[in-house]
């Protein structure tokens, strides 16, 4: 009998329990350590749910900042990536990232699949269970590919992108992840002072490098650079983009807060405050920069600004003061606006600013950790940035190049004009709405 409510069940059950002859089955009263383990585990699970909500955040942000004719395609990619992320992480990712170090800390390995050992579901394993560990880490994994998704939007072939995602999430992300968090070489050098708290490098830069490699090989959208001038290709829905950013910010409380890896009141609450202030300062920084440079404040820049602030403090939210996080976030907010301009001058077309937000501010956040963070070393941070960058960029570049030479990575000109929704999916995102579009 599965009694969902204790309405009548509980008394009954208690009655049975006390009257029971199976006295040996009666659970002993919980200890304080049990309670602590339960609350720690609960928090990491909740944090995993919050990281999950970042996926619709990315989906809406990317959909909002691109054209209506490619919306189905973007949504499709983002839904798929969650599935790809969780499934590949279950099969190989978790093992590659946190398995026993091999090849001098280059990767880990603990066999295919996931299966807890004897004590992995109790406090003997840590502050949470093996399953919780997998879920929290698995939710992170997909994020790197999602970052790429935004940068290559509106022109990438669906199946090539999905293949790229599978490999990048299943192999590249866990390898650098192993260096950074899994006990690999990077975490061993310089007395182990390397610090990337919740993943400015491990997640955001890794995604950003992938995005950079991909847009170099993919080329800009048709109509983006005409006769040497950059044309604006406005996104089709600012409400979607804004909601996306709010969901990302919301999810970031799990991303950063959960990275404390237990529910320690002082630790988690500090991290949530620095995260909040970093985001707020990012908004302020981007707003002022955009207002001054562009004359009128650009909402899409301010949205990027809040994410920039968040990415900036992600590496160091646990070891900075709130005032420092305001500074780091504000600088990230300024930086992201210039980065958008910079990539645009380089003719690198990134519809949603993924490289500016995740790559540039991911690097900034990691370095800022070396500058402001208690006990961190700038040189070690720099080493990490360079090593991870070299690996991720090269890996992504070769992977995309292979796809380019085999399956092709770019849709035909006709399909790009007509939209990927019709081309790749044979359907439209706004049936019945007449969308006025001239490119």
């Amino acid at each position: 009998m599965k009694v969902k409510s204790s309405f009548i069940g509980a008394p009954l059950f208690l009655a049975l329990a006390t009257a029971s002859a199976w006295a040996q089955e009666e659970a002993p009263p919980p200890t304080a350590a049990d309670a602590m383990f339960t609350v720690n585990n609960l928090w990491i699970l909740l944090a995993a749910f919050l990281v999950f909500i970042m996926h619709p955040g990315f989906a809406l942000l990317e959909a909002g900042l691109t054209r209506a004719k490619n919306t189905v395609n973007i949504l499709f990619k983002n839904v798929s990536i969650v599935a790809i992320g969780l499934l590949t992480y279950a099969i190989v990712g978790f093992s590659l990232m946190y398995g026993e170090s091999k090849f001098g800390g280059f990767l880990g390995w603990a066999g295919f699949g996931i299966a807890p050992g004897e004590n992995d579901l109790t406090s003997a394993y840590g502050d949470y269970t093996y399953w919780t560990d997998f879920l929290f880490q698995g939710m992170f994994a997909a994020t790197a590919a999602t970052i790429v998704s935004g940068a290559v939007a509106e022109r990438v072939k669906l199946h090539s992108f999905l293949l790229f995602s599978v490999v990048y999430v299943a192999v590249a992300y866990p390898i650098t992840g192993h260096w950074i968090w899994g006990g690999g070489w990077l975490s061993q050098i310089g007395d182990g002072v390397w610090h990337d708290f919740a993943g400015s490098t491990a997640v955001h830069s890794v995604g950003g490098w992938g995005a950079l490699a991909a847009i170099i090989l993919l080329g800009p959208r048709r109509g983006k650079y005409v006769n040497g001038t950059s044309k604006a290709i406005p996104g089709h829905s600012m409400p979607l983009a804004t909601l996306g950013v709010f969901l990302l910010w919301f999810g970031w409380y799990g991303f950063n807060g959960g990275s404390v890896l237990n529910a320690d009141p002082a630790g988690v609450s500090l991290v949530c405050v620095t995260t909040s202030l970093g985001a707020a300062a990012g908004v302020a920084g981007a707003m002022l920069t955009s207002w001054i440079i562009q004359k009128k404040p650009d909402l899409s820049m301010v949205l990027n600004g809040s994410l920039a602030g968040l990415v900036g403090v992600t590496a160091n939210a646990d070891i900075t003061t709130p005032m420092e996080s305001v500074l780091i976030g504000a600088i990230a907010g300024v930086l992201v606006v210039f980065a958008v301009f910079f990539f645009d001058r380089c003719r690198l077309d990134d519809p949603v600013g993924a490289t500016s937000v995740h790559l540039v501010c991911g690097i900034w956040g990691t370095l800022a950790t070396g500058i402001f963070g208690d006990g961190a070393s700038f040189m070690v941070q720099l080493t990490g940035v360079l090593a991870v960058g070299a690996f991720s960029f090269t890996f992504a570049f070769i992977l995309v190049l292979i796809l380019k030479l085999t399956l092709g990575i770019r849709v035909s000109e006709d399909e790009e004009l007509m939209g990927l929704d019709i081309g790749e999916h044979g359907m439209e995102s706004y049936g019945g709405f007449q969308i006025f579009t001239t490119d």
Partner: protein
Amino acid sequence: MKLIVTYIQPHKLNAVKKALFDAQIRKMSVTNALGCGQQMGFHESYRGSDIEVNLLKKIRIEIAVNDEFVKPTVDAIMTGARTGKIGDGKIFVLDLGACYRIRTGETGESAIG
């Protein structure tokens, strides 16, 4: 019979409709349009790229009338739509060869109203 096509400022639609009603012209068809004319448009900017918007939102009204109604119609549109500022719009008058009412199959002048 004439077919009168006019482009006006969007926010003048209600005024024009009222003026037409006052002149007993009760039938018309409206679409939205983008117009390019002396009114030079404005600049938008998006993520650092400038966009010159020179297609401005306009309303297009099509009114089929019998010949004696042409002048009242044109006058009513003028009354309702004029602000004296650039961008007020245009009125075009075309010859209408034939007109049918789908519901009844009526044709000619009686079908118009």
